[in-house]
């Protein structure tokens, strides 16, 4: 019996050996299959924009020479024309020259001209398409906040590039013709009338004129109602993560969804309609000043794009080398703001040398116009009095403009005109019928 068992075992061993040989023969290294759908189309949330589509003046002020001033804001046709034409202008013969209040009084209050005000200090190297000799200009004026073009009284045009942050200005000769300037001024006549409010210069910067242009008359404004659309999380996940297949998600106690691949994190603040993106793989090395803005714009382009009319609202440089770039969406020339930071169209990026590390943006976009109703705003004098009552000196005012306060309803959003006060510290205050007496803090800075 035993012998039979041994023979049987021997036969089984031979068979197993033969089978094992075949398996060795046929065995291939253990390989993972290539994924079937390896290539994921990048999600398109909005459209891509060029650098100067968003790095555009937040104010285009028309000086008509008769003591009146009008202003065009992003999202208006006139602003669009000027912003496009501006890219074709060239400037030559940069010469450092103080841009004093006297100069402003001579050219702006009594003369005619255009004044382009940017949301932040723009590196002049970015303006190379404007014919800027950056090699010559950059050492003198690295950044520019406003560009003014005036009739010089001699039949020619004269331009000033002004850096509020540096308190410097350079004079230049634009290639713009007087006829063109006149045509722009003619177009700008129909824009919102503003009052020029010279502001005392800070100590040590007496050579630099600072002027606020605020809407002059109590405007007859309209309160709008729009449907809005919430951009789905999946679109952001696809656009923000390198490999959306590796994403793990979870819901926090407060209901916010969190997506992460272990290195990048996206937190969706549902009720606030905000997205917070954090990429810890970005090297925290100082970013070159000229590069931060373009890196921010490219980042938004490559991660979903733009969903409205955006303009650079603020650009700050941190002492540790990072840059913070804030864009704001405009509708009919009014920036969209929200209470307690829940802005529609808000977009803010923290740029390091290694790339964008933090990205915050709104997750909604306006859809169909639903209706409007007329409303009124306090007169600017009342606003200024209110500010005085709040002990806010005019020199602390960065900009005082009209804005739409967004209030989200079930399926639509109400856009209510308010006064928007932006302080030099970055603080924003909303003043209006509904926002009056309430001191809102935007909290971005």
């Amino acid at each position, binding site marked *: 019996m035993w012998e039979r068992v041994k023979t049987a075992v021997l036969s089984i061993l*031979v068979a197993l050996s033969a089978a094992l*040989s075949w398996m060795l023969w046929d065995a291939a290294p253990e390989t993972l299959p*290539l994924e079937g759908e390896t290539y994921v189309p990048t999600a398109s949330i909005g459209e891509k924009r060029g650098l100067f589509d968003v790095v555009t003046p937040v104010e285009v002020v028309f000086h008509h020479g008769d003591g009146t001033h009008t202003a065009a804001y992003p999202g208006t046709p006139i602003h669009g024309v000027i912003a496009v034409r501006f890219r074709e202008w060239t400037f030559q013969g940069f010469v450092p020259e103080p841009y004093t209040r006297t100069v402003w009084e001579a050219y702006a209050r009594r003369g005619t001209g255009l004044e382009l005000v940017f949301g932040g200090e723009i590196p002049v190297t970015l303006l190379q398409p404007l014919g800027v000799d950056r090699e010559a200009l950059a050492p003198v004026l690295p950044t520019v906040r406003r560009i003014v073009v005036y009739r010089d009284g001699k039949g020619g045009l004269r331009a000033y590039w002004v850096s509020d942050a540096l308190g410097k200005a350079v004079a230049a000769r634009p290639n713009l013709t007087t006829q063109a300037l006149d045509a722009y001024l003619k177009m700008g006549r129909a824009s919102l009338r503003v009052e020029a409010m010279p502001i005392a210069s800070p100590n040590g910067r007496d050579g630099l004129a600072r002027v606020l242009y605020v809407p002059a008359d109590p405007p007859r404004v309209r309160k709008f109602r729009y449907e809005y659309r919430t951009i789905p999380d999946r679109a952001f996940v696809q656009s923000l993560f*390198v490999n959306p297949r590796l994403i793990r998600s979870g819901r926090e106690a407060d209901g916010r969804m969190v997506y992460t691949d272990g290195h990048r994190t996206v937190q969706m603040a549902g009720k606030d309609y905000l997205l917070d993106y954090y990429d810890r793989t970005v090297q925290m090395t100082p970013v070159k000043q000229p*590069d931060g803005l*373009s890196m921010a714009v*490219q980042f938004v382009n*490559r991660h979903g794009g733009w969903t409205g009319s955006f303009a650079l609202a603020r650009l700050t440089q941190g002492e540790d080398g990072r840059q913070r770039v804030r864009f704001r969406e405009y509708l009919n020339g009014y920036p969209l703001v929200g209470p307690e930071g829940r802005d529609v169209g808000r977009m803010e990026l923290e740029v390091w040398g290694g790339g964008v590390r933090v990205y915050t943006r709104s997750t909604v976009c306006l859809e169909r116009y639903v209706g409007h109703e007329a409303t009124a705003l306090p007169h600017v004098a009342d606003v200024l009095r209110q500010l005085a009552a709040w002990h806010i000196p005019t020199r602390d005012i960065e900009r005082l403009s009209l804005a739409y306060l967004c209030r989200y309803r079930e399926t639509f959003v109400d856009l209510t005109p308010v006064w928007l006060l932006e302080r030099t510290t970055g603080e924003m205050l909303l003043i209006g019928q509904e926002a009056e007496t309430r001191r809102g803090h935007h909290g971005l800075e």
Partner: protein
Amino acid sequence: MGRLFRSIRAKVVLVYILLLILVLQFAGAYSVRAIEQFYLENFRTTVRAQTDLLAAHVEPYLAAYAEKGVPADLGGNLPTLVSRFVSVIGSEVQVIDRNGTILAASFDTGNVVGKKNGYLEVYRALLGTPTETVRNDPGTGDRVQVVAVPVKRGDAVLGAVWVKASLEPMYGVLHRINGILATAGVLAVVLAAVLGAALSRTITRPIQDIIRQTDAMAKGDFTRRVRIYSDDEIGQLGRAFNHLTARLQKALADHEEEREKLASVLANMQDGVVAADSRGRVILVNRRAAHMLGRTEDALLGLPLVECLPFPRDRDPEDGVGAGGAWIVEQEEGAHRPRFLRIAITPIRRGTARRGVIAVLSDVTEQETLERERREFVANVSHELRTPLTTLKSYLEVLQEGVMGDPELGPRFLRVAQNETERMIRLVHDLLQLSKIDSKQWRMEKTPTSLSHLLYQVKEHFQFQADARNIALTLSLADPLPPISLDRDKMLQVFDNLLSNALKYTGPGGTVSVSARADGPWVTVTVTDTGIGIPAEDLPRVFERFYRVDKARSRELGGTGLGLSIAREIVRAHGGEIVIDSEVGRGTTVTVRLPLDEEARAADVGTG
């Protein structure tokens, strides 16, 4: 088929194949893996080096793309670039930005540019870790080497270069190598099977011979011998087996002879043997035992031993069988004299276990009879000596008390004392004579003697006594008797005893005749009287020592009771025989036959 697979040959072949396959497996697996690793490493190094080169080349472009956002200008036509840096045929190359979006691809058939590359390798590369894997392309079934290396500037990852290169050409080479190895392996296995079968035959053939020889031995044929093929272990086995066969044959013959001897001994031994197993059942009995026990052998086999053997009345059969020992029982056999059996039981033990018993039955009738006769003889001697001594003592005491002086009683009592003394002397003389006969110390001094003269002398000796008692005593010699070699004195004693007895028990007027005649090689002497005769039941015992038909009369007549016994011993010592024929009331005839001695007769003729 089943028998084939039970054979050693099949096992040897299977073991050969198994070992060879195992060796081929290990060697093949090791060599193939080593070759594969070599090719794979070479291929991987090539692809990696070219990928690193391409990554270094596109680094400035990706840096500009990351900083300025300008479209990546990779320095011209990508296929040209790829052919310049990646020379692996059929490889697919992609340049990817740090967001995973493909900026350029060598083959953009799927319009992958602008899409995200979801390969894990790319993901890891964009985290700064070069990654290489071997994957399987489900579309083509090809194994592909996927390499993704990060494009860095400093520590910042700008993007990645991803290369997917097919490994199939390399595996084609490996496949051909495997084919060569497999073909060699199959040929080796076949060759091993053939050689194994041939070699196993050299082993199994002598074993098969041994098996056949074993079968023949089982049938009793020890004459065959295994053929020796070689001088190796198998040959030694064959020799050992042949030696074993011879030894076994001799041992079986010896055993058979011993068995026959034992059977013969058992069958012919005078003692009976009965063997019982551990349960006490008879398993062996010889013929003698069956005879002694009065049953057939077949009837005894299987019976309990206690039921077969006779036991004394005072012995428990179970104890007798169980404890062993020996005893003597008396068996009555009808009219014959009783037979005495000595039964000795010996337990058979193996270790402490009792395996059975053996009972040996011995017929001790002779010994027992002799013993009884000895005891009777001693009693008789004692009695015969005590009687005259008592008489002598009585008479001597009377004489001592004063009868000695009595003229009548004194001599008479002295004569009685003398007679008793003579009687004791005769008795002692006869006893001494018997003792010498029994101890073989008795020497016959035969001389050629004339029996006629001897008988005449005896007749003359008793003639006076016969006349005194008025008994006719005659001697009749039919022919001239030849001389015979006799111890004259002892034969004279025989005939004196016979005539004395005849005269004692023959009354007055009776006749006592002595005759002698030659009877062939014998000489027959007959003493016939017309006395009282001897009862038939006493006839067989008249020659016994101290046996008297009429004890009182015999003792009165001065007999010792030993005369006939001595006479018979003397006649037997001469090679003759003595027979008594008697009838109560009509007389007794005693016939003595003595052998003739030719030499003595010749001498007698010469002297006559």
